[in-house]
Each structure stands twice: as C-alpha cells, then as structure tokens.
C-alpha cells in the first residue's frame, strides 16, 4: 500500500511540475538574483522554524513561498498562482520522504539527519527526473498541451484540496504523524487523493493531446485538399489557354495576311501581353511550391495563398531551391507559418480596404509575398505584406492580446514569440517600412 502511494505521489508530482513549468513562462531573466534571494529566504525560514510552534509551520511555509514569489516575479497574481503550485509540490516531497522512512522502518521524521538527507535527496532526484522527462517529451509532443485552462483549474483545485487536507487531517496538524498509523482513516483519504489525481491528470492529458492531434490532422487535411484544388484549377486554366492558343494564332494570321500592322500591334500589346502575364503568375504559384518537399508545409502555403488571392491580394511565391526538411518538426513549422500568413493576410486585407475607399496612388496594391530558401546551415521563410503603418510600437506587437484590432486579437504573434523564445534554433526577425511588414523566420538545420 505504501509503495502504491509512493508511486502515486511521484505521478502527482510529475504532472504538477510539468504543468506549473508550462504555466509560469515568465520573463525571469536574472537567474542569479533569483537564486540568491531564494537561498537567503530559505535560510531565514529554516532558522525561524526552529523557534516556531509546530502548528505554525504550515502557515509559515505558505507565507514564505508567497514572499519568495512576490520578490521573484514582482506580480501578485503570478506569485499567488506559483505559490498554489509550489505548496503541493512541497507536500508531495514530505509525503514521499515520510513514506520512504516508513518502508525503511525508521523514525518517520524529516527533522532527524537521515530524514533530512532523504528529503533533500528526493527533491534533487525528482527535479532531475522532471527535467529529463521534459527534455524527452519536448521532442515528441507539443508541450503546449500542459498550458491548458482545464489543467490549470484542476491543478489549482488539487493544490488547495491537498493543502487543506494536510492542515486539518492530523491530530496536531503535523503531517508526518498520519503515516505511521496505517489504520488512520486520513491515510486512506490521502492514498485515494494521490492515486485519483494522478490518474485524472494522465487521462485529461491524453484526451487533450489526442484532441490536439486530431485538430492538427484536420487542418493538414484541409490544407492538402485546398492544394489539390489549386493544382486542378491551374490545370484547367492551362487547358483553356491551350485551347485559346489556336484562336490566338488564327487571329495573328488574319492580321498578317491582311497586312494590318496597326491592328497586329494593338492585338499583341493589349490582348497577348495580358494573357502572358496571367499565365506567368498562375503557373508560378504551383510551380515553385513543388520544390518544398514536406507536403504539410507545401499545403499550408498553398492554402493560405489561395485564401489571400481570394481576398483580392496579389500573391507572389518564391521557392526556387529544393527544401527537404527543417531542424524543427514540420508540425511546428506549419503552426508558425500559419500564424505568420494569417497575420500577413489580415494586414494586406486592411490595405485592400484602404485602396477601395482611398484611391490615391500613394497606397501600394495589396500584396503578399512568401519566400523559402536555404542557407548553408539553415532555412529561411520570409513573409512580406503590405500594411497600413499605425502608431504601433514595434516592441509591443508580440505582447499577449495586443493588437490594433482591439480585445482578443494579437494572440498569434504572442504564440509565435513563445515558440521562438523556447525552441533553440528558431529566430524571428521583423522589419517594417512605410508600406510593408516583413517577418523573417529562420530555422537552423539539425546538427
């Protein structure tokens, strides 16, 4: 029974740690200061507990964490949340250590030297394990599934419940008293709690990840469908042009036979030049894309470009070099490209609206250009669109919820920055001038 409980506690700890990590994606840049502050506060706390009545320790711990978090994060809301996350983690360590002591048949107290060493050892081992598991998972799944509202609510619930259970279960509020007495009803309550929470989280995570995969698959499927559609369309137009050619040649012959030089000139410049331009653009859209081998990436570009063209935006694609693979997963590339292209289309549509209402020649025609090319050790994507320059500080456009369109927008660019901030080998640069907005995404090749 103790072993089951130990495993459950470890599972609980793991989920808690992974979730809290993903939630607290904070800009704690000064790691040294953070470290020194925690050590000092930890030391003061340790000294204080020696003089504290034993019932007070629980409350003092809460206070200590809150203080520490306020100092580190400087935001009350974040500090509260991270405290809610940190406490159950600490209690999980206590529980684990006490259980181990019990299994080893020693005095179940973490205040003697053996207990203390075990306690610290547990912290080190479990944190190390979390780190390793995180690295393992990062390569295989999208870590964003942990950053989910349902998960956070459950975590907070579980955390509060656990803290309350600890505070009110033991005879004198000291948690390790519960465990030696295997018949204590509280023992079974804890067992049930840990096992059920660990299971619940595992199930929910599985559900969310499956949901995400399905969504992503649906998107890729839709994109492929659109790509095939675009191919068919271009084939149809090619056939139409082939058919037209016969007519064009006949017309040319008529003009030549009748010696009508003026008519021939007019016909050439007015009619044929237009057709020529049309053909060039049309064939290029699909021609260039063939060079991009990963079909999901190809599809998403084709899909978004078709969408843009449908909105009256001039689309231009450059992909002259064969692109086989990227240093990051294709799923990530698709997600990022999707955001970049959506954002670009949004910007270009604004200029399209403007050209309709304001016919002055200064405003460029709405356009969207996409380029993919290779560098010696990386691949670059460029998305350039026309935009209306606003009074928009460039440094703010990546902030969550910041958009010129008001509430609820601007989430895309924030996600983008999160990806490029977390993944090694991805860099995103932004350039603007009066009429254009350019994003340059570079993915280093796998080494």
């Amino acid at each position, binding site marked *: 029974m103790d072993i089951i409980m130990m495993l459950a506690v470890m599972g609980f700890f793991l989920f808690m740690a992974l979730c809290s990590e993903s939630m607290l994606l904070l800009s704690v840049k000064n790691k040294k200061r953070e470290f020194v502050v925690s050590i000092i506060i930890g030391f003061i706390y340790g000294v204080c507990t020696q003089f504290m009545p034993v019932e007070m320790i629980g409350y003092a711990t809460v206070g200590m964490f809150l203080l520490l978090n306020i100092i580190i994060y400087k935001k009350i809301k974040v500090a509260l949340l991270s405290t809610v996350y940190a406490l159950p983690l600490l209690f999980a360590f206590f529980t684990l250590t006490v259980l181990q002591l019990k299994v080893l048949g020693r005095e179940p107290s973490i205040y003697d030297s053996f207990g203390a060493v075990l306690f610290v050892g547990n912290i080190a081992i479990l944190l190390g394990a979390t780190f390793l598991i995180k690295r393992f998972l990062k390569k295989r799944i999208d870590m964003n599934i942990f950053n989910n509202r349902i998960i956070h609510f459950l975590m907070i619930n579980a955390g509060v419940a656990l803290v309350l259970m600890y505070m009110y279960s033991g005879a004198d509020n000291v948690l390790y008293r519960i465990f030696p007495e295997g018949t204590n009803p509280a023992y079974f309550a804890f067992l049930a709690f840990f096992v059920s929470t660990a299971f619940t989280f595992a199930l929910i995570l599985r559900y969310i990840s499956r949901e995400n995969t399905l969504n992503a698959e649906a998107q890729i499927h839709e994109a492929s469908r659109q790509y095939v559609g675009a191919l068919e369309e271009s084939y149809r137009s090619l056939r139409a042009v082939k058919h037209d050619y016969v007519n064009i040649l006949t017309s040319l012959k008529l003009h030549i036979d009748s010696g009508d030089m003026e008519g021939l000139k007019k016909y050439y410049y007015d009619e044929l030049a237009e057709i020529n331009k049309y053909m*060039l653009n049309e064939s290029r859209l699909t021609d260039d894309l063939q060079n991009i081998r990963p079909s999901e990436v190809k599809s998403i570009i084709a899909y978004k470009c078709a969408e843009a063209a449908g909105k009256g935006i001039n689309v231009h694609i450059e992909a002259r070099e064969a692109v086989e693979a990227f240093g990051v997963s294709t799923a990530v590339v698709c997600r990022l490209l999707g955001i970049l292209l959506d954002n670009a289309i949004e910007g270009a549509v604004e200029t399209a609206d403007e050209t309709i209402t304001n016919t002055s020649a200064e405003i460029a025609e709405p356009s969207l250009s996409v380029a993919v090319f290779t560098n*010696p050790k990386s691949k670059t994507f460029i998305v350039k669109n026309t935009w209306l320059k606003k009074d928009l500080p460039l440094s703010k456009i990546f902030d969550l919820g910041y958009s010129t369109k008001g509430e609820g927008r601007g989430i895309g660019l924030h996600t983008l920055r999160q990806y490029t901030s977390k993944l090694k080998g991805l860099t995103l*640069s932004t350039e603007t001038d009066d009429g254009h907005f350019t994003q340059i995404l*570079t993915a280093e090749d796998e080494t």
Partner: protein
Amino acid sequence: MLDIYICEDDVKQRESTAAFIRNYCAVQGMDAGIALASADPYEIFDAYEKTRNPALFFLDIDLGVGINGIELACKIREQGRIAFIVFFTTHSEMTPLTFRYKVEALDFIVKDNTDNIKGRIAECIETALARYVIKTAGKTVKLAASGKTILLDPDEIILIETTHIRHKLRLHARNRILEFNAEMKDMEALFKNDARFVRCHKSYIINKHKIEAVNKKGNTVTLTGGNECPLSRKGKRLIA
C-alpha cells in the same frame, strides 16, 4: 576604387552593359571601373578572390554553366568583404525576397523592360558608391546573424536584450527586431568604443540616446518605441 564585375552569358548584352558602364564612369568621373566582364562565374569569382577592393557585381541569374547567379552571389558573400550585388533577371526568374534576404542584393534589374536598363545600372553604381562611403566611414556595425552579416546603423539601434535561450539575442532597432546568435559580451566588445551604448543590466545593452524617461525608483528606463528595461546598480551609475 570600386571594382565592377559583370557576369552574363549573352555576349551582346554583356558587351553593351560593359560599354555603357565604362562610358558612364568616365563621363561622371566616378571612382569605379570594370574589373572583369565574363560569361564564366568561376572566372569572376577567382578574379574577385585575388583582389582586396570593394566590388559591385552585375550578375545574370541563369548563367548556362555550373552555378547560377544566386549561387555565385552566395560564394561572394562567404568572403565577407564589402560587396554589392545586382541581379539581371527576367520576369519569370524574379524572386525579390530571395535576392534581398538570401544574399542581400542591392537591387535587381528586370531585363524584359529594355528601355530603362541603362538608367537602372547608373542608379545602382551611384547607390553602391554612396553606401561604400558610409560603410568605410565607420558608421555601421556588423552583426553575424545565422551565418550572415547584417549591417546596421548604430543610430537606429535602441537596445539589445537576452532571450530565454542561451546565446540568442534580440535587437530592437527603429523599425526592425532582429534575433541572432551571439553573446552579450561580444556585443559589449563590439560597442566598446561607442559611448552611446551601455550595459545597463546583465541582460540589456541600451542606446543612451534613445532613453525617453528614467524611472530611478522603479529602477527602469523607458526607451523609444515603448521598450522598458531594468537597471542594475552599476547600470544606474552608467546612465546618470
């Protein structure tokens, strides 16, 4: 002296371009001249490798043999010297973003519109000469970003900050944000002789001229473009 190279496989076009440039530079009295006009990209590259002069290249995209114009441009860029590249391109070969961002081409000239080719060539020579003067006057800084060098005017730089990833820095300039791989101490060394740039915090280097407000109590400064960055104790002294 600005060396001009022309790589074009069509003999007629190559000779007419070369003749025009020779004539133009002589008439305008420009400090520039044709170093080599050839159809062979390797010949062009070998000649360029042997000299130390800054150069301006007019490259055709489709060269018929071996490498194409863009690949030649890449090889030229690998040398890391001051070089300006202009592409001759047809309508169907035109990839402006690739020209500009892959090899930092100065410009491209579309061969299909025959009328203003000469005017465009003249423009390119003038721009290259003007930029060459700015570059040699030490008004730019060189950054190595993802294997490429980026030239920036220090006046435009607002701040450089660290990111969550080691060795990855983010630079905010007037109208661009650049992410690149480097370390703070390299950046500090780069701006060592420029009094405008101070490392006001472990994670930030800022341009003092871009400070809009100093909030000493909160230990932060607000810079142009709404960037706010913290000050360390040492940083506060440097700003004051």
